């Protein structure tokens, strides 16, 4: 009896904590909507430039360590205070860029991001906090920066920058920092800054003219992985360059590119060619005179969210729930996990799996197919109670349910004659967490 009461009490406490957290989230959301209304409403003029003639005593105390730098000094500080910087992207690059710009005393800081904070962002997007999971990233960055330096005017934009709004937003800023995570927005920003004649400080990539690269060759943090401190270093460098430009100092990376290899710990400073006369945006006879559709141009979306593929027909797919009942009923099958080996260390389904990472399918499908057939055959022999003549099913799984479809598709073509029944789990491990086991980790 005592035990039950205690259990219930602790459950109650947990639920109350949950309610408190959700209330807080709700408050922030409402607060956020209020503030965004003020900031983004066209009637409120936030684009006006403010010129400052002198520094206040509070400014002098706050910025004293940089005021005594002869290269920067009072002149630089006043210029910085009179200037505005737009940071596009409130993620791994945008967080360090924004916080240093705010700390240094830029006059107005705009932050653009359509996305909301997720737990998997926090290892690199260091201005967000646990209690702001689910809150707008642009607002979260503005709030963190405000705590460090309330004298800056912060303008969060919770929107996706696109061809229709980019020029309007950019025109009221002096310097633009590209801290985005996708190719389409990078091209858009490049062209918008050329058209609006604004300096663009780009982190991580360059050379946006010419043909776009095939989208499958561009990786992002959510697919390729990243150690959090690496974008931190690059974002800090972007802030430094933006501060130099805004305060009238000599920029360092005009016609230069700095490359950092975090694994080797090496920097490489590269000389670039100057503007190309034949460039379609900034050349002598430009053909791009207004912004185009960059998602279409790049053949890739303007987010780092991975699109869901639809490769397999419904008959070749099972839901996570269906797989759970297969496990429950002890239906003999082979589980094929096509994630990279390192990801199996993070989590795996509660059934022994054959791990063949997906890249191997493209590399040598014949070898992969025969490896799978061997496991299938071994299992056929060891299973005494074989269901009436039917072959053993191969169930393929990956993180989100894209690679698993491609893998099944390749295998089906290869193993057509064998009669092996191949299916994938729709939505991969994500849907396992959603439908079957809420305690199963997502990453």
């Amino acid at each position: 009896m005592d035990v039950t009461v205690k259990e219930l009490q602790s459950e109650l406490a947990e639920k109350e904590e949950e309610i408190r957290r959700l209330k807080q989230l709700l408050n922030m959301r409402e607060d956020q909507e209020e503030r965004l209304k003020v900031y983004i409403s066209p009637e409120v003029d936030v684009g006006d430039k403010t010129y400052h003639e002198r520094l206040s005593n509070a400014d002098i105390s706050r910025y004293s360590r940089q005021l005594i730098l002869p290269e920067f000094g009072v002149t630089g500080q006043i210029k910085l205070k009179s200037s505005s910087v737009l940071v596009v992207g409130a993620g791994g690059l945008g967080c360090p860029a924004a916080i240093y710009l705010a700390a240094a005393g830029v006059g107005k800081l705009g932050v653009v991001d359509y996305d909301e904070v997720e737990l998997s962002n926090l290892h690199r997007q260091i201005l967000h906090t646990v209690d702001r999971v689910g809150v707008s990233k642009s607002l979260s960055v503005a709030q963190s920066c405000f705590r460090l330096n309330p004298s800056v005017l912060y303008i969060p934009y919770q929107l996706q920058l696109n061809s229709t709004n980019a020029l309007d937003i950019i025109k009221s800023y002096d310097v633009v920092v590209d801290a985005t995570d996708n190719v389409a927005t990078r091209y858009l920003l490049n062209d918008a800054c050329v058209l609006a004649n604004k300096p663009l400080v780009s982190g991580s990539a360059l050379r946006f003219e010419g043909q776009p690269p095939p989208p499958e060759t561009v990786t992002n943090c959510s697919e390729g992985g990243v150690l959090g401190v690496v974008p931190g270093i690059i974002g800090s460098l972007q802030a430094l360059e933006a501060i130099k430009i805004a305060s009238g100092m000599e920029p360092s990376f005009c016609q230069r590119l700095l490359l950092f290899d975090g694994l080797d710990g090496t920097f490489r400073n590269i000389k670039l060619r100057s503007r190309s006369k034949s460039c379609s945006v900034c050349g002598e006879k430009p053909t791009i005179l207004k912004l185009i559709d960059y998602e279409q141009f790049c053949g890739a979306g303007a987010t780092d969210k991975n699109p869901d593929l639809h490769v397999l027909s419904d008959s070749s797919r099972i839901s996570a729930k269906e797989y759970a009942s297969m496990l429950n009923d002890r239906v003999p099958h082979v589980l094929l996990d096509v994630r990279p080996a390192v990801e199996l260390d993070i989590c795996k389904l509660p059934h022994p799996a054959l791990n063949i990472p997906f890249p191997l399918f493209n590399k040598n499908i014949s070898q992969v197919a025969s490896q799978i057939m061997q496991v299938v055959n071994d299992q056929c022999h060891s299973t005494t109670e074989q269901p009436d003549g039917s072959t053993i099913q191969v169930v393929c799984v990956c993180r989100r349910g894209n690679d698993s479809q491609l893998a099944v598709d390749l295998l089906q073509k290869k193993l057509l004659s064998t009669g092996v029944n191949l299916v994938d789990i729709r939505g991969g491990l994500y849907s396992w967490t959603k439908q079957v086991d809420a305690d199963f980790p997502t990453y």
Partner: protein
Amino acid sequence: MALSITVEFSGGAELLCGNVKKHSLNLPKQEHKWKIRDLLVWIRDNMIQERPELFMQGDTVRPGILVLINEADWELMGELEYELEENDRIVFISTLHGG
């Protein structure tokens, strides 16, 4: 006489050749001087282990790969027509990433 140079891949381009970044090459003797144009084909045929289309498109590198010749953008050096010298350092960097 063979020509020895260093070739490096980074920014993700190293994944195309077994995740090895730095390679010392001894290019075989050939009739005319080795140009970057010849080197690209040689690398594609002898070093790229998978998906060569992610390295080359037509007779040049695919868009998004930056080529450096001794720390300078290859567009400053004559691109495909640059003639390789002993001990040159050629770097291929995949430049488009996330944030």
